[in-house]
C-alpha cells in the first residue's frame, strides 16, 4: 500500500516537521516559511506556450491569489502544483516545483500521493453522487486514514465542521450531496478536500458559480482554513483577491508580471500592466 506520508510509494524518505518528505539538501527553515517553490516553470500545450519561465514562492499558511485575464496561464500554473496537467496528453511542463523542499515532478513521485497532500476545489461544485457522509469519507477510506467506523465518523464530523457545514447537514448526512444548495455543495467539496488533511488547497475560481451570500461564506471559510493549510486561489474577481488573499500574483500572456503583498498590489502596484489590469483599463 502507498505510504501517504511520502510522495514516493516505494522509497521512503525522512520526513520533516510538516510530515512531508524533505529532499536532500532542502532547508527546513525554508520549508517552514515557503511551502511551494516554483523555479523557471514553463508549460506548453503542443505549440502553444502557456507559461514562460515562472519563478514564484508560495508562503505557507497564507492565501496566495493568482489573477490575470483569461488565457494568462494562472489556472495552468495552479494545475501544475498537483500535476493535474499530467492528464492532458499535449501538455509539457519544464522547470522545477518543490513542495516542502521536494520536487513534485521527480521521476519517482507518486501523483496520487501528491494529490493527497495537495487538495483541489474546482469552479463548479462537483460532489460525488453519494451521500453527504460518503463524499467526505471517500478520501480517508481510500487512503486508509481511519482505523474504525468511529474514527471515520470523527473525521467526517471534523471536516464538515472545518468547512462550516456541519450544523446545516448534521441531521441529513445520509442525503445525497447533490441535493444541497450550490454554496453548500462547494463547502462539501472543501470538506472532502480537507478530510485527507492536505497541506495545500488549490482553489480554481471556487465562488464563480455562487451567489454573494454563499461567496461570503466561502471567503470566511478561506480565512479560517489558512490557519491550517496553505491556500492558492485563482479568481477573476479583483475584489475577491483583495478580500481573501495575503499575496497576489499577476499573470499576463503566460508571464508572471508582478507578485507581492496584496495590500501593496491593490494600492501601489509597481508594474504598469498590473495597474492597468486591476483598475479595469485592460480586459
Amino acid at each position: 500500500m502507498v505510504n501517504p506520508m511520502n510522495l514516493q510509494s516505494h522509497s521512503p524518505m525522512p520526513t520533516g516537521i510538516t510530515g512531508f518528505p524533505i529532499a536532500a539538501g532542502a532547508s527546513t527553515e525554508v520549508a517552514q516559511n515557503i511551502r511551494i517553490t516554483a523555479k523557471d516553470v514553463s508549460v506548453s500545450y503542443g505549440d502553444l506556450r502557456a507559461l514562460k519561465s515562472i519563478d514564484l514562492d508560495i508562503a505557507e499558511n497564507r492565501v496566495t491569489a493568482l489573477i490575470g485575464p483569461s488565457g494568462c496561464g494562472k489556472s495552468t500554473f495552479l494545475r501544475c502544483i498537483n500535476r493535474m496537467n499530467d492528464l492532458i496528453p499535449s501538455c509539457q511542463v519544464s522547470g522545477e516545483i518543490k513542495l516542502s523542499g521536494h520536487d513534485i515532478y521527480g521521476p519517482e513521485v507518486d501523483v496520487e500521493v501528491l494529490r493527497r497532500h495537495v487538495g483541489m476545489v474546482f469552479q463548479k461544485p462537483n460532489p460525488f453522487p453519494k451521500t453527504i457522509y460518503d463524499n467526505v469519507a471517500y478520501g480517508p477510506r481510500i487512503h486508509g486514514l481511519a482505523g474504525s467506523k468511529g474514527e471515520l465518523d470523527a473525521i467526517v464530523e471534523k471536516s464538515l465542521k472545518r468547512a462550516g457545514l456541519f450544523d446545516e447537514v448534521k441531521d441529513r448526512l445520509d442525503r445525497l450531496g447533490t441535493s444541497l444548495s450550490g454554496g453548500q455543495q462547494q463547502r462539501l467539496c472543501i470538506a472532502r478536500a480537507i478530510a485527507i488533511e492536505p497541506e495545500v488547497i488549490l482553489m480554481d475560481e471556487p465562488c464563480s458559480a455562487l451567489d454573494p451570500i454563499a461567496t461570503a461564506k466561502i471567503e470566511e471559510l478561506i480565512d479560517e482554513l489558512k490557519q491550517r493549510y496553505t491556500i492558492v486561489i485563482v479568481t477573476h474577481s479583483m475584489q475577491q483577491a483583495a478580500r481573501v488573499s495575503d499575496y497576489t500574483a499577476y499573470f499576463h500572456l503566460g508571464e508572471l508580471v508582478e507578485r507581492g503583498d496584496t495590500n501593496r498590489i491593490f494600492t501601489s502596484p509597481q508594474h504598469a500592466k498590473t495597474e492597468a489590469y486591476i483598475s479595469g483599463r485592460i480586459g
Partner: protein
Amino acid sequence: MPNHHIVQAFDAELETLDALIAQMGFMAQKQQEKALNCFLAHDKEAAKKVRDDDEKLDACERHINAHATQIFARRQPVAADLRTVVASFKIAGDLERIGDHAKNMAKRTKRVGDIPILAEVSGSLRKISRLVETMISDVIKAFTSRDAGLALAVLDQDEAVDLLHKCLISDLLSHMKTDTASIAAGTEILFAVKNIERIGDHATNIAEQVYYIVTGRQADEGDGAA
C-alpha cells in the same frame, strides 16, 4: 498604461472629482486673496462677503465627499484610482480649512484700524500671502496634471513661508514692545499672520497627498521606497 477604463462612466466620475477639487482649490485661493485685501484695506463689507462665501467652500467639501463616497460604493477603485479617491477626502478637508483661515482673517478686519503698525508690515503681509496663494495654485495644478515634481516644489515653498512668518512675528513683537498702544491691533495682525502660515501648511498637506497619488509613496519615503 492605457489612460481610459473599460467602463467609461468610471472615467467620467474621476474626471468630475478632479474638476470639483480644481474648482474648490480656485475658490480657496480667491478667498485667501480677498481676505488679505479686505484686512489691509479695512473693507468691512468685503470682509463680510468673504465670511459669507465660506459656506460655498463648505458645500464644495460636502459635494466632493459625497461624490468620492459614491465612487467607492460603485467602483471599488484600486491602485492610483484608489489613492486619488482616498486623497480627495483629505484634499477637500484641507481646502475647507484654508477657507476657515481666510474667514478668520476677514473677521479680524473690523478689529484692525488704520494704524501705523499695519502699514509697516503690509508689504511683508502681501509677500507671505502671495507665497501661499502660489502654493495653492501650484498644488492644484500638480493635482490636475498628476505632477509629483511640482508637488515636491510646493513642499519646498513652505520653508520660505515659515521663514517669512518668523520674521513677521519678530517685527510685530518689536513694534508692540516699543509702542504698547499698538498691542491690541498688533495681536490681531499676529493672528492673521498665523492664519496665512497655516494656509501654507494646508497647501503642504495637499502636496503630500498629490505626491502619494502619483507615486504610491509618501513624500518623506524618497524614491527608493515601495
